């Protein structure tokens, strides 16, 4: 469903990403791992349209999307989260989820000002969807709190819920477990698997927490210094000598 071919990204003299290829099939969780500064997030930024890659192709459901503006890519169903949580801090939790559904509520100004029945119906639907996902990530009690006041773990979950209400096909998570305690990581683990199993969403994630990566990934891509180092199933990666040398460390 997503195919990245020979992606390169150059910032002036620095080649941050060099000939990286990866692919994501439907119903699959793919992890990207690598040491700090390896270029993982740059790959993400290229895929989500924040950067215009200097070389290579990105195909999403057969269509080339490299260089498209970010908001258009996300409308295709390719939605991401951020390494540092980016919520709309002074808006409430529900409002965060409603903003994300603007496309489901795509009505003209007049029908909204006049509150036509059609508009009300759509609004109710998006409220229901928001309620469903709040329930799903356990934030129902926080619905009318300002998002910026939530605990860090809750903010993380809210960010995922905010992506999910857009009904994406492919979810890109940038270090979703960063800053979470072991219990929270375990919950997250289950949440991500359920996204795949119950909602049929493919997931690409960048993560440093190896237990999470090894547990849930179907396949893993390792990047080192901007270059692809290895790819394969968790077991293959665990046994790969190059990966152990570069990243996992010798036990």
């Amino acid at each position, binding site marked *: 469903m997503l195919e990245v071919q020979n992606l390169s990204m150059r910032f002036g003299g620095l080649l941050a990403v060099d000939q990286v290829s990866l692919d994501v099939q439907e119903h699959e969780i793919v992890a990207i791992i690598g040491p700090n500064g390896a270029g993982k997030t740059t790959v993400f930024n290229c895929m989500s349209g924040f950067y215009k890659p200097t070389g290579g192709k990105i195909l999403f459901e057969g269509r080339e999307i490299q260089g498209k503006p970010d908001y258009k890519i996300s409308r295709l169903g390719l939605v991401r989260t951020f390494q540092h949580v980016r919520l*709309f801090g002074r*808006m409430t939790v529900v409002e965060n989820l409603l*903003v994300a559904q603007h496309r489901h509520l795509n009505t003209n100004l007049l029908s909204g000002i006049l509150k036509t029945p059609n508009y009300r119906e759509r609004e109710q639907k998006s409220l229901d969807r928001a*309620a469903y996902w709040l329930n799903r990530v356990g934030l129902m009690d926080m619905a*009318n709190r300002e998002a910026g006041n939530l605990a860090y773990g809750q903010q993380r979950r809210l960010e995922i819920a905010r992506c999910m209400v857009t009904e994406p096909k492919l979810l890109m998570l940038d270090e979703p477990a960063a800053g979470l305690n072991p219990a929270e990581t375990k919950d997250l683990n289950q949440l991500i698997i359920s996204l795949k199993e119950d909602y049929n969403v493919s997931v690409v994630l960048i993560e440093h927490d190896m237990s999470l990566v090894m547990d849930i990934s179907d396949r893993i891509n390792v990047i080192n210094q901007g270059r692809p180092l290895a790819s394969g199933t968790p077991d293959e990666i665990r046994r790969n000598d190059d990966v152990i040398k570069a990243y996992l460390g010798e036990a």
Partner: protein
Amino acid sequence: MAAHNLKHALFCAIVTLVISYPILGFNLESQGTSVILEGAKTSTVIGVLLAAVIVFLFQLFRDNVMGSLRQLPAVNPLANRKPMEQSRRLKLESALLTLMVIGALIWPFIASRGAVDLATLVLIYIMLALGLNVVVGLAGLLDLGYVAFYAVGAYTFALLSQYYGVSFWFALPIGALLAALFGLVLGFPVLRLRGDYLAIVTLGFGEIIRILLNNMTSLTGGPNGIGGIPDPTLFGMEFGRRVKEEGNTSFHETFGIAYSSEHKVIFLYLIALVLAVITAIAIRRLMRMPVGRAWEALREDEIAAKSLGLSRTAVKLSAFTIGAFFAGFAGTVFASKQGFISPESFVFLESAIILAIVVLGGMGSQMGVILAAIAVTILPELAREFSEYRMLIFGAAMVLMMVWRPQGLMPMRRIHIELKPQE
């Protein structure tokens, strides 16, 4: 008392002296053709010295003074009560608002002519501030040239009536739409700008419009302005003593009452009131619609908003356009109220005042902005004797607000959304 307190207090006192003595302590007297410098009266000098001493003492004992101030029993008995329940508060609020509007409808018939005239001005400022609130408070785009759209609305009506004899009611939507178009046009070049840079460009835009109006003498009459702008009519009834336009009737003759110049003032007030209420309701609705939430999302985090599929272009342009639209409304009413407009009415100071209203009221809060508009417009009128110090008082009020209530008179409250529990 620590030594640094003393040092600080001395420094403050000296600054007070340095600033105030040259300004207040000397007088320029003209003797024949030459101007000579004279020392001021002893009382002024003593006043300046006294001020310095007061500053010194206050700074010296600042910690004590502020500390004891804090220990005063809460002056406001309502400060510690529990927040009201959501549903009750909403009911109370809507009841209060309805009462206010009804009161505002009845009020002009008992108030004096001057008061009604001033109230019309207040309503115009409310419209302007509500419009700017969309741009600055909700979308977070600092617009220092907002008065340009106000000018576009006013000049649209003035020019249309002068050259084509268009009436108020036709000019009203045209003025608003043209202002909105200007908002759209300004929006394009500033799409990528934020914060200070945006402020500078919008400031420039405001000046461009004003200078253009000043210099296109053949069209706009330049600094002489445009006069003879007609009053609005009520279903073809004019409010003048004599009918100016063929085919119209006059208001007092139709109803068989004696002519009074107050009719016109009250009528204008009512028009402004209706338009202000429409503005408030429309923007209130917009705030709760996807487009309103998109404005706020863009203010909060542009990157996250884009990653969720919001188009920065569309969101920013819609904020500029809708904000400008209501400024156009206000401009048309203003032109009709004054009967005469010139570029003088649309200087940067106007933009600054409207922005000050929004900031004082509380960014994004409608009630706050309305209250601040009333306060900022009426207070200078009440304090006419101090008119020389108007800007000084204004500045001091702004500083005090920033110290004590940086979030504004009535900070924006989030809307509580009831969710149905899902299975």
